[in-house]
């Protein structure tokens, strides 16, 4: 009997919790907040997918090259006679060259994908700017109503209406202000992404050029059977640093953008 009572109590608690959860889910949030939440989520998602566009394939190729380099280093360290390891080294160099050439082939497709993401962000930015226009129109209407209030004969009604309208105008102005801050963050994200786009393009260009450098080095080693002129490709240090710091900046800005949504009133007016 006691066990049965315990089950009933636990069941009731679960039911109440579920009921309250359903209720909380049903509370309508304001249109403005809903729109801002949607835009913030989309911006975050688009920025992240921008930073992962085509990256998996490139990462895989570079990881392979790193392994091949390790193997070449091992070969040289263990070799007693350098001439004896020229052939296996040429094979490894060929692997690295082909890998960089593959990245070079991927370039147009990746650039196209990046362009698509930038266009998506542009659309979202436009949507946010449209929202400000809508809110400004609504504020103007309220101000018009406030002006026309002088026609009201009853003083008490006039005072109540004035107080209400003044508060509504104030809220609207605050809402516009929050949207403006939101847009300024969105703008910063857009600019950061555009900079990252330029950096990634240069980064890919250097990788493609390195494919040519490797191909050249490979041909020399093959023809002369001499390894004096081995790998010495163009440095990517500057672009690498930029890409790492831009990703950190972007994550921080997306976090700020998400926080901005919470500044708006939660419930429908």
């Amino acid at each position, binding site marked *: 009997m006691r066990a049965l009572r315990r089950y009933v109590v636990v069941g009731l608690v679960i039911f109440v919790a579920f009921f309250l959860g359903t209720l909380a889910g049903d509370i309508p949030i304001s249109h403005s907040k809903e729109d801002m939440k949607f835009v913030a989520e989309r911006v975050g998602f688009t920025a992240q997918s921008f930073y992962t566009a085509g990256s998996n394939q490139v990462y895989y190729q570079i990881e392979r090259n790193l392994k091949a*380099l390790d193997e070449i280093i091992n070969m*040289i360290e263990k070799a007693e006679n*350098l001439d004896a390891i020229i052939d296996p080294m040429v094979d490894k160099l060929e692997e690295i060259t082909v890998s960089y050439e593959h990245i070079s082939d991927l370039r147009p497709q990746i650039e196209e994908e990046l362009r698509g993401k930038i266009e998506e962000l542009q659309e979202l930015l436009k949507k946010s700017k449209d929202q400000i226009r809508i809110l400004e129109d609504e504020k103007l209407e309220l101000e018009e109503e406030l002006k026309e209030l002088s026609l009201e004969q009853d003083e008490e009604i006039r005072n109540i209406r004035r107080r209400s309208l003044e508060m509504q105008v104030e809220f609207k102005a605050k809402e516009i202000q929050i949207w403006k801050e939101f847009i300024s963050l969105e703008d910063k994200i857009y600019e950061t992404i555009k900079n990252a786009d330029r950096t*990634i393009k240069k980064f890919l260009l250097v990788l493609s050029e390195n494919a040519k450098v490797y191909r050249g080095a490979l041909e020399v080693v093959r023809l002369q059977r001499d390894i004096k002129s081995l*790998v*010495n490709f163009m440095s990517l240090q500057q672009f690498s640093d930029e*890409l790492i710091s831009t*990703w950190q900046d972007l994550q921080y800005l997306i976090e700020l953008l998400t926080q901005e949504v919470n500044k708006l009133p939660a419930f429908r007016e």
Partner: protein
Amino acid sequence: MEKGETRRGFRKIGWWIILLVMVIVFFLILGGSKRWEWFSPPRTWSDIAILVQEVEEKTQKLNQILQEALQSVREKESPSEP
């Protein structure tokens, strides 16, 4: 049901279990391999940049080792030269 039939039934189930475990192991190995990293999040360009920095360090090391190796070859060759 006879004793022999029961044993055969268990053996059949055993084979199915082994097959299932093998399939799971196969997919785990496939999933963990480089080309099919289903369980890991997608790589970012920042991850690539970090990897490229490693490549640059390795290239520098390779060049350095190579120079040292060539130097020692030259040193070995020079005393025998007239």
